[in-house]
């Protein structure tokens, strides 16, 4: 009966599993790879070494030495440390982003339970998230509220614009009604003028009859 090969230390640590997945793009780690033979303590030392300030050459000096194989006891090459360092940075960034996602999801839930507009909530959460990332990328601390407030103002502006359009349409309708009434009055006056002209030109009527008809026509 063959013994099962014991698993490498990196396989038991979620952080290092992710680092290896980034390094190998989801493939199997080669048996002779530097990380394969490092113990849990070595992995911790490596993480500390690569997090220290200084150049890769300086960090290399405090890294754990290779174990096993032809290069046993030698320090890892700088090119390999550069790859591991980059993979660690990617995993650290993704973990920070994951924390941010959890906070965003909780914020959206809370805003939803308060009955806030989901589209607006999403936009504000997104903007605040971007601001957090920007500050992280630029290693700065700034005011989150400014960007979020801009989004709220933009949304409020859009809403106000919509309301303004509604009022404008209402006013246009009112004006149209007034115009229709004005035209009807003008038509009535034109008809009265025609009738008056007919009465005045009618030679069969006496002056008194004409006066009576005119008073009747204008409702006096």
């Amino acid at each position, binding site marked *: 009966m063959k013994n099962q090969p014991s698993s490498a230390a990196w396989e038991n640590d*979620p952080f290092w599993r992710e680092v290896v997945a*980034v390094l190998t*793009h989801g493939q199997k780690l080669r048996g002779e790879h530097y990380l394969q033979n490092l113990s849990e303590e070595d992995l911790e030392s490596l993480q500390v070494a690569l997090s220290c300030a200084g150049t890769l050459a300086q960090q290399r000096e405090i890294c754990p030495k290779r174990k096993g194989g032809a290069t046993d006891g030698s320090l890892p090459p700088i090119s390999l440390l550069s790859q591991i360092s980059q993979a660690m*940075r990617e995993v650290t960034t*993704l973990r920070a982003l994951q924390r941010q*996602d959890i906070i965003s999801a909780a914020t959206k839930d809370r805003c939803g339970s308060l009955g806030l507009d989901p589209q607006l909530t999403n936009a504000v959460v997104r903007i605040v998230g971007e601001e957090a990332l920007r500050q992280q*990328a630029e290693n700065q601390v700034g005011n989150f509220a400014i960007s979020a407030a801009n989004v709220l103002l933009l949304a409020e502006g859009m809403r106000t614009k919509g309301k303004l359009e509604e009022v404008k349409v209402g006013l246009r309708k009112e004006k149209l009604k007034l115009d229709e009434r004005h035209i009807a009055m003008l038509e009535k006056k034109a008809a009265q003028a025609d009738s008056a002209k007919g009465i005045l030109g009618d030679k069969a009527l006496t002056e008194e009859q004409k006066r009576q008809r005119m008073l009747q026509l204008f409702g006096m």
Partner: protein
Amino acid sequence: MIDQDIKKFVLRRLLQKNGEPATATELKLAIRSAFNAAFTEGDLDSYIAQLEADNYLAGTNDDLSGTLWALTPKGKIRAQQLFKA
């Protein structure tokens, strides 16, 4: 080589979001955080454009947030293949 790494990082980030889309700004800032290089906005836009051209990403427009990017089914499969941690 770094170009490929960046594109893979974007796939991984979107896979991590479980179908939730991300703005181009968010993706570009994430790249800036994860990679220690001096990128221009054009460089970063081109990574997203290349991933879209390869049919790994698809964008949709949102009134308040601009274009939102998410993995296509092809992109999701590719990302899952790449990162079986």
